[in-house]
């Protein structure tokens, strides 16, 4: 649902956020202790603080609690015991072949989605980075899939890539067998391409912003050093947009960890034979369809740790020279 607010570009109009800077003028101007407590500030934030408590803090605590107990959903008012089981649920998660498969699937997803997104959005952003006719048309065209609901887009892709869909009709005898969405090897790559397609417009904008901050002098000096087109692209542009690349990588990891509607709808519940199951889909199937919320909660905790570790790693890798 949420994406970390990472600042991708250098030319943003707003000053960089610096946590709690004491540069607000209120301190100087407010007459001391004129109002009784609570101060308006506390009043103003209290609905939001309450929201964070109800929607984030409580469920977070509850998830951790569930993941260490034998827990199931019951009717309101029903008495039931939820005995402490220690790490049992976590053991079950790690020994479950479908869970392991779903993490492997996410690895496949990332291996395809991240390079594809980075390359295509950088190419399109570079092409867009000039005064051109119909520039705003192109920009809008790239953005349209991003603002459209996954459910609507999945419906079209299912039609496009179905056994009797347009893609197979155009390919004729070259069409894969079994067809895309029921092919154990191709199902996950189709999802990775779908997500890249859907999100690309957003990253084109991110790279477009990032390109503004790459200084002209660097290109000029690279040209003076006799660097060719490819050399100067690799030695000037790529390092210049590195923060944006970090954003793409972290965002892709979070999207991959959040995948649900695509495997649920596009490949009919993570099919074929779990070849496109994602961890969230498994959480839904185990927790809600099959009534094992304790297993699903443990899987959720594992998934979040996985996301955190992978995001840190992605930042390390993409920022190592920056």
């Amino acid at each position, binding site marked *: 649902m949420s994406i970390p607010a990472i600042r991708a570009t250098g030319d943003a109009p707003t000053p960089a956020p610096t946590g709690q800077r004491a540069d607000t003028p209120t301190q100087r101007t407010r007459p001391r202790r004129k109002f009784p407590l609570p101060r308006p500030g506390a009043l103003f934030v209290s609905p939001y603080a309450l929201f964070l*408590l*109800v929607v984030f*803090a*409580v469920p*977070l*605590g*509850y998830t951790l*609690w569930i993941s260490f107990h034998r827990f*199931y*959903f*019951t*009717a*309101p*008012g*029903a*008495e*039931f015991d939820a005995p402490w089981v220690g790490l049992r649920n976590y053991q079950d998660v790690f020994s479950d072949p*479908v869970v392991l498969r779903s993490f492997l699937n996410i690895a496949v997803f990332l291996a395809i989605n991240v390079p594809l997104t980075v390359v295509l959005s950088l190419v399109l952003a570079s092409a867009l980075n000039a005064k051109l006719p119909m520039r705003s048309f192109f920009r809008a065209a790239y953005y349209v899939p991003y603002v459209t609901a996954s459910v609507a887009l999945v419906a079209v892709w299912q039609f496009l890539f*179905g*056994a009797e869909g347009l893609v197979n009709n155009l390919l004729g005898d070259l069409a894969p067998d*079994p*067809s895309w*969405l*029921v092919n*154990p090897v191709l199902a996950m790559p189709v999802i990775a391409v779908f997500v890249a397609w859907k999100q690309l417009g957003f990253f084109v904008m991110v790279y477009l912003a990032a390109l503004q901050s790459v200084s002209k002098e660097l290109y000029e000096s690279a040209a003076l050093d006799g660097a060719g087109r490819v050399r100067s692209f690799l030695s000037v542009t790529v390092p210049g947009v590195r923060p944006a690349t970090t954003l793409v990588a972290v965002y892709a990891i979070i999207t991959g960890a959040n995948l649900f509607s695509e495997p649920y709808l596009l490949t*009919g*519940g*993570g*099919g*074929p*034979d*779990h070849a496109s199951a994602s961890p969230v889909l498994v959480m839904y199937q185990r927790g*809600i*369809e*099959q*009534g094992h919320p304790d297993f699903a909660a443990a899987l959720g905790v594992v998934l979040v740790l996985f996301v955190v570790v992978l995001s840190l790693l992605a930042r390390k890798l993409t920022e190592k020279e920056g």
Partner: protein
Amino acid sequence: MPRKWGAALLAMTLAAATAACARPGPDPATATTSRGSITVWLSNNAAEVAWGTKMVDAWNRAHPRERIKVQQIPAGKTSEEALSASIIAGSSACLVFNTSPASVPQFQKQAGLVPLDDFPGAERYIRERTGPRADQYRSEDGHFRQLPWKSNPGMILYNKKIFRKAGLDPEHPKLATYRDFLDTSRKIVESGAAPAAIWPSAGSEFFQSWFDFYPSFIAESGGKPLVEDGRPQFDSPAGRRAATFWRTLYREKLVPQETFQGDAFGMGKSAMASGGPWAIVAYKHSIDWGVVPFPTSDGRPASRISTFSDEKSAAMFSACEHRATAWDVLKFATSRQQDGAFLAATGQMPMREDLAGTYPDWFAKNPAYTTYAEQADRTVEVPNVAGSIDVWQTFRDAWTRSVVFGRERPEAALRGASRDIASILAEY
């Protein structure tokens, strides 16, 4: 900073603790004798809704103070999931006329069902209506938490027009033995009469095996359930023969691995389907069909073949406040007269002893149903054991992996699933 985090943690713990106090449900002691208006849920099958609406009208005319409101089971991927959600929300209807016996153990664990033997005479009523078969529907603790309502014994329907197109004799189809069934399927697909011989879902939902493996296994094994006396039964010669038969269908691409979006048989994309008597009403105007029992390796006669009942029960849910009324409605809706009306409206078989003898006139007028009625006396149920959804899911995962997608040998998959299911059963 550490102090702030400490405070935040404390707040979180407190909040989690307060979250644990839930809203109360109805008090069983008063609800059992309480009377008043109730809600009844029906499946979204048009014929069932038509019957249900009439039944409710008849009740409401006679009982103006205890009116019934009828609704369809809420939307969900499956009605089991929607019912489970309604139990958690405390928003279930009083009575649901479409409760799968496989999910009764789970609903029971969720404290979602009212034991029917709380009501005087209930035990006798159920046993007299259904006969000895009723015992299959007792929970493991001996209580009845469902009233066996109606069944749809699974058989093979075939499309006569497609058979004719494939050069096959539609009046005497060769479908009794595995070899005949495979030969017939090959002819259908090779001739291009239909893209699929038969098209069950290749999906991994726990219940999908009820329409491919389970009826085949029951037929081949002479009426064994999936689990008996706490032990899985399918890792046996009969189970292996049934699995190998289906594997051959998939391997030779007589059955597609892609799940059809919609009704493949109804749209003429498959020549055969596994279906119960509901299909007679559904395809009355669209398809010229015939019906035969599931095949067996030795092609034994129809009179010796058992099949899966695909039974649905009526159950009372614990969110019900006026349970005395609900119990009366349950008896009214399963009375001899209403069962007859249900049979006439839907063609599905009420779970009544000696059905053909109870409604002889109707069967005389509708000979097509006699095959099903005969089959209805030899049905096998899903095992009523705790963890039954897990059992079916484990089986289904092994099935799709091996039989559908051929990533493991069926024999090995059955053995593995049998071992896993045994440990699930031991754990509950």
